[in-house]
């Protein structure tokens, strides 16, 4: 599905990405973790065609992307600024569906359904400034999910929601992925989360970012918030990712 090939980027003289290689297979969910400011968002923006990388390329289904690829949805880190303040939650969610050629009614229904899924059934008519931070973030998630993209890019999408909602959204993401066969790239700071939802976890170094490790997560499906997290494999993977993020070399034994 997605192949990032030796991607490099710099803002002026400040090197941010330094030859990042990455793949996301069809229907795969890849988590990306890395220190703050290392270049994760830049990576995501390059994939979305919003930043023209200095070197390397992004391939989608084998085709190099020059512009924003089709059938893509993004949940930006700065969700509050990515929602349109002049539109209600429902309108924000429904807007991208115009691309899908849906009728007005279908768009409205799809938007309501997506808002329902993220627990905002009652807030469809609210404007962004009338919603709490977590609610705004969930609207952004609903907007991406309603779009049913082939490739979904998410930049710390659950950062502003409470623990329980976060777990529900993680499970929702897994369920949607399973039903609609989406490929997902998820940037997160939560190491538990990266392991819990991921098929693979990609760990980046601090800026200029490179891939330290690309870990396969061989945990059984369906995953369960309590049972999965109690698995010995989960605990081991979590510790491993934690060590990698902290920049300590992984012990040979635990590998």
């Amino acid at each position: 599905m997605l192949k990032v090939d030796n991607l490099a980027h710099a803002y002026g003289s400040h090197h941010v990405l330094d030859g990042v290689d990455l793949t996301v297979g069809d229907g795969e969910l890849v988590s990306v973790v890395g220190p703050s400011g290392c270049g994760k968002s830049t990576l995501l923006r390059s994939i979305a065609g919003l930043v023209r990388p200095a070197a390397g390329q992004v391939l989608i289904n084998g085709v190099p992307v020059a512009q924003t690829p089709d059938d893509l949805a993004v949940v930006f880190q700065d969700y509050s600024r990515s929602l349109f303040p002049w539109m209600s939650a429902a309108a924000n969610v429904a807007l991208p569906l115009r691309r899908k050629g849906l009728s007005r009614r279908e768009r409205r229904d799809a938007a309501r359904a997506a808002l329902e899924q993220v627990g905002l059934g009652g807030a469809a008519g609210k404007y962004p400034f009338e919603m709490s931070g977590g609610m705004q973030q969930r609207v952004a998630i609903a907007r991406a999910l309603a779009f049913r993209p082939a490739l979904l890019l998410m930049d710390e999408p659950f950062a502003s929601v409470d623990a329980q909602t976060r777990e529900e959204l993680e499970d929702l993401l897994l369920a949607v992925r399973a039903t609609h066969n989406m490929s997902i790239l998820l940037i997160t700071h939560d190491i538990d989360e990266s392991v819990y939802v991921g098929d693979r976890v990609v760990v980046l170094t601090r800026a200029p970012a490179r891939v330290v490790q690309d870990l396969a997560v061989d945990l059984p499906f369906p995953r369960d918030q309590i049972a999965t997290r109690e698995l010995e494999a989960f605990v081991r993977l979590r510790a491993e990712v934690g060590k990698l993020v902290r920049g300590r070399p992984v012990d040979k034994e635990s590998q």
Partner: protein
Amino acid sequence: MKAAGRLRRFAGRFWLVVLVVLLWEAGARAAGKIDFPAPSLIVARMRELWLSGPPSRLFLSDDTLSELLPGLGRMFTGWLLASLLGVVAGVALGRSAVASHYVEPLLHFGRAIPPPLLITPFVLVFRSSTQTQLAVIVFGVIWPVLLNAMEGARSVDRGYLDTAAVFGLRRHERLLRVVLPAAAPKIFAGLRLSLSLALILMVISELVGSDGIGYQLLVAQRNFDSPGVWGTILLLGVLGYALNSLFVVVERHVPGTRRSGPGRPETGGVT
């Protein structure tokens, strides 16, 4: 090498102007009407009017010194006065709902009054023609600055204001460091508008008096000196262009206008 690059930049910026002038020249020569003289004729007349002086004075003619410069001086003074007044009053009104309720209707009343009609009362209130002319300029120019500053100061993002409140910024700090920079884009739009408006008002104000570009224009019109009329108009355009370029340069160096949008700048999106 360098010269070639500069030439290319110049061509990139002015090709349309050159094209328009050429078309105009051709069209005017073909039509041959006295009311629509060719640019070459106009420029010749302009040289005669303003650049026929001795080399020691940079060729500036008597007319340039006696007619042009005093008018431009009044224009600048008027614009500066109006800008100062407009920004101060605009920001104050933008931040004080109560005050704006009291005076806003008056302001909107005032800006609907054609400046030429105010000459009579102003002649009475201001006792010299320079003062009268300045008053006309200030009165005509102030509205874009005032209104834009008011709107700008009024619609500062609440996030910024809350932050200022929470950290206990004092009134003047809040105004100077938060409200003004946040309103800067609108204020600058207003200032830029009013700058060329000042040139316009300069002409209007010279309906009274006996010197200035506006006065020269009137005289040219009455004397049916068609190249002179066009020349004056052209001169106004050129002056306006120069002023605006100057303004853009200044604007670029004002802190607060540095940001490219409220968030990240255009990341050079691939489109």
